[in-house]
């Protein structure tokens, strides 16, 4: 009879705990500490790959890339990562490009099944040792009111302005219309989607 009691308690405790539900994937960490996100390894991969890397003062800018735009598209998303290797914080003030009337920082959010995009106020601080990361599903640069379309393989120039480090011109290398990471630029944030447009 004691056994029955034990079984009952065990069953109740299982019911109370409920079925195991995996925790949702963590929201996008826009600011990652080097090391915590495996960037020392990433640096090795970058060194062996053709993805461009830029240095401006104590800032290291890695693999700027964007997607080719479908015909007639007025917007394009751009991505890169900026690491502050210095001992003082810096701030990303603005981004400018000839290709677009303006370049804003936006964030994609999913709430349930609803996708939304919200502008993020600049300047954006980059603390010493931190990486400001733009990647699909999180922060992206929104090239708005495009003056021309972007084709796969294009290198789109843009100027990044920082409060302390100053200005630098970088090139965003365009992948396909559905690219999920820089071409040949280290591990993609999400698995690369195999789709290539068949018609341009």
């Amino acid at each position, binding site marked *: 009879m004691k056994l029955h009691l034990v079984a009952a308690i065990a069953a109740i405790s299982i019911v109370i705990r409920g079925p195991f539900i995996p925790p949702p994937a963590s929201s996008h960490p826009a600011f990652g500490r080097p090391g915590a996100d495996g960037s020392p390894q990433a640096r090795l991969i970058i060194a062996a790959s053709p993805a461009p890397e830029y240095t401006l003062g104590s800032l290291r800018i890695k693999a700027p890339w964007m997607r080719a735009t*479908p015909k007639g598209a007025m917007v394009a998303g751009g991505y890169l990562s900026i690491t502050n290797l210095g001992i003082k914080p810096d701030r990303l003030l603005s981004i400018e490009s000839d290709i677009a009337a303006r370049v804003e920082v936006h964030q994609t959010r999913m709430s349930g*099944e609803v996708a939304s995009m919200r502008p993020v106020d600049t300047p954006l601080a980059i603390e010493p040792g931190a990486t400001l990361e733009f990647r699909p599903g999180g922060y992206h640069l929104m090239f708005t009111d495009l003056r021309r379309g972007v084709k796969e393989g294009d290198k789109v120039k843009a100027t990044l302005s920082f409060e302390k480090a100053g200005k630098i011109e970088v090139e965003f290398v365009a992948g396909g219309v559905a690219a*999920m990471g820089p071409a040949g630029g280290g591990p993609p944030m999400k698995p690369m989607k195999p789709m290539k*447009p068949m018609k341009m």
Partner: protein
Amino acid sequence: MLKRIRTVLWVACAIPVLALLWVGIVTFTQRTDDVSALQASGIGGRFKLQSSAGGELSSENLKGKPFIVFFGFTHCPEICPTTIADISSWLAALGPEGKEIKALFVSVDPERDSVASLKDYLSSFPDRIIGLTGTPEQIAQVAKEYRVYYAKHPLKDGDYTMDHSALIYLMDRDGKLAGTLTYDAKPEEAIAKLRRLLAAAA
């Protein structure tokens, strides 16, 4: 007395076991998309919209054919182009097997997405995706039928962006909901669900 205690304990034991079983059944059916429950959801309905392929496309034209519907807009840098490309790649992977599946991209931004701009936009993708647009009222109606949330969100300088449901609906030959896919679905999952959609009898 002893018998009574035993009965009480058996019942006490049976309740959580049954509850556990019920939780299991619910979780299982949710995972596998219980088709009858989806059909009963009432999602889907009649529509007649302007098609990027020319002319109008109505729900009547789709009778007897399974189809995919999703909602988006062309001023969307991330989710919309990648979803269009994903669906194209699933259909390409199915090959001739999936030939009868129609894939519809309904604009939730009819103000900016004209038939011509949808046609241009989709010309950058394999030609399996049909763009649909209409008057704001027609879009509101189709969104209501598919229980799709969308809303305009103003940006600086009079610009705006759209919040919208990114769910992909799989509709059966009767125009009833038979399954859903999320925008980040894995190709294997998507292809398996599309095969099931094709296999379902009219």
